[in-house]
């Protein structure tokens, strides 16, 4: 297919990848009070780690297990109601880790107010607080137009896709994923940018997300070719 009509970006999209290291804080919570108090004090990178760990470690699972807080509420605290509310926190709707932290703390404190007892987790089931340290590296892949973008999406590692979709939006607080921003600002692809921004990446595997991104980009190329020939 002739794609010479595709608009070219003034600034190419450079794909980065990320690798991370998990740091231990040495902090642990035995009950909901300690959990809420520590959550209020720890850096945002702790909140990020415990809401994204499963996603990174279970790239092959969909639906993946819930965030660490929900898992702990279910397995250690045996509190199915709290676990369900924590699992239902829709991370995609939060623009900052501060807002996400406030929501999680609010759910825990609401539950504490309703529960009559303040039980401790069994010994050995304490919650251990950790944080992610991200190292971001440039990959050799770049895209100047939609075709190159789609081709690069096939080649980069899932860690690269993870970085531009999850890390950029929430952790680096870019507000929107890097792909949508570039497509809109550099190629004027408003519709495609919105379509990608509206995906809920938390409900599919990273490979599934890659396929959806490629499909959206390729559909847009077909549309563009058809309107060019019309």
């Amino acid at each position, binding site marked *: 297919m002739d794609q010479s009509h595709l608009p070219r970006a003034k600034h190419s999209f450079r794909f980065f*990848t990320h*690798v*991370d*290291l*998990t*740091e*231990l*804080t*040495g*902090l642990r919570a035995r009950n909901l009070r300690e959990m809420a108090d520590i959550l209020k004090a720890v*850096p*945002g*990178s702790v909140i990020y780690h415990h809401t994204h760990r*499963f996603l990174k*470690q*279970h*790239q*092959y*699972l969909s639906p993946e*297990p819930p965030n660490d807080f929900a*898992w702990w509420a279910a*397995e250690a605290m045996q509190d199915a109601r709290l676990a369900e509310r924590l699992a239902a926190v829709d991370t995609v709707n939060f623009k900052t880790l501060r807002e996400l932290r406030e929501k999680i703390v609010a759910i825990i404190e609401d539950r504490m107010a309703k529960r009559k007892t303040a039980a401790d987790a069994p010994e*050995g089931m*304490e919650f*251990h607080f*950790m*944080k*992610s*340290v*991200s*190292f*971001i*590296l440039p*990959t050799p892949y770049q895209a100047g137009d939609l075709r190159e973008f789609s081709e690069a999406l096939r080649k*980069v*590692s*899932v*860690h690269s896709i993870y970085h531009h979709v999850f890390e950029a939006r929430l*952790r*680096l607080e870019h507000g929107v994923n890097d792909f949508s921003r570039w497509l809109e600002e550099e190629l004027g692809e408003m519709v495609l940018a919105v379509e990608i921004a509206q995906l809920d990446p938390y409900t599919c595997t990273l490979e599934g997300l890659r396929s959806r991104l490629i499909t959206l980009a390729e559909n847009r190329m077909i549309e563009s070719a058809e309107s060019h020939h019309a």
Partner: protein
Amino acid sequence: MLEQYAPIVGAGVIDDLRLIAKKLAGRVVRNVNSTAVGGGVAEILNRMVPLCKELGVDARWDVIKGGEQFYAVTKKIHNALHGATQEFSPSDWDLYWQTQELNAAQMDLNADILFIHDPQPAGLIVKKTPGKGRWIWRCHIDLSSPDLAVWNALKPVVERYDASVFSAPAFSQVLSIQQVLISPSIDPLSDKNRDLTQEEVAAICDRLQIPRDRPLITQVSRFDYLKDPVGVIEAFRMVRERIDCRLLLVGGSADDDPEGAKVLAEVRDRAADDPDILILCLPPTSHVEINAIQRASDIIVQKSIREGFGLTVSEALWKGKPVIAGAVGGIPLQITHKHSGILTHSVEGTAYWLKQLLQSPDFARKLGENGREHVRDNFLLTRHLREYLMLFLSLDHPGKDVVYL
């Protein structure tokens, strides 16, 4: 050598390793531990050092020297850090520090990074010079409930390091220095884990006289109360009331382990003359045999009551088998309950899940597939190597949560 891992983990993972290692090119990383052969640390270093070199990092490995009395003291320190109460005399600590001084005086400790493994050589930190080399203490021990007197003696020593590394979250302590979580790993190319053909598996099972005409439930672990082999027999008997199956308990010969021999005798007594319970004692070099046995099994059990990291779970998951394991030590890092395996807390729970998995082969197969993928992403040597490289790089960026390289 690194390229051999590409078909298993994907070329992208090897590319990432090369990309990261470029940032460390030529740096000298000097590992120090207490033994060149035997034990998990030596096994890891034997694999890691050549791979680091292949990636352009100047990795080296030295071993401290000490007499029998020194190693008797460090054995006591090791046991105390694991939680056992030990008697220490002031001369024990004197000997520990004298040996550190002696080694520090004799060893070449020039390096960009000094990577010191476990308590035996931890005191070499006395040689730390400001501005010359960074020091990391790698703790391979379960520090979740240490003897506080010994830990309080060691803690100020550890806090002189630039960073520390632990294998599981529960092993971490409140420390004034950076603490990093790096789990151990398995080598997918080793005899214990490499792919075997069905013919190889069948030949080994025939040689060891393991029949395969009924579902086979297996636990591979030394004969130790903490691995609860008797509990496994009890769970098996509850299952066999309803389902036709066999149990295989595989362990070491326990010739030089008095407690192991006692546990083995008890296991044999409990098994009595039940023809469906097989007990197999193998020499410690039987890696390929263990590999074949795991592949021949339908369900693998690791019913530990207490565990360090419990890497045998990853070995079993790597074979794509559904695993039922005790929720202790590092096992919950390897198994997410009902996603990548089953976590249990009792004999009854183990029996319940054995029945469920034997009766629901699709679910069991899915657990096995998920477990293998979880190990591929998180517990193979390549991930371990990547995290060591990241750890070395992190020393250049203290206190930063996001680092652009």
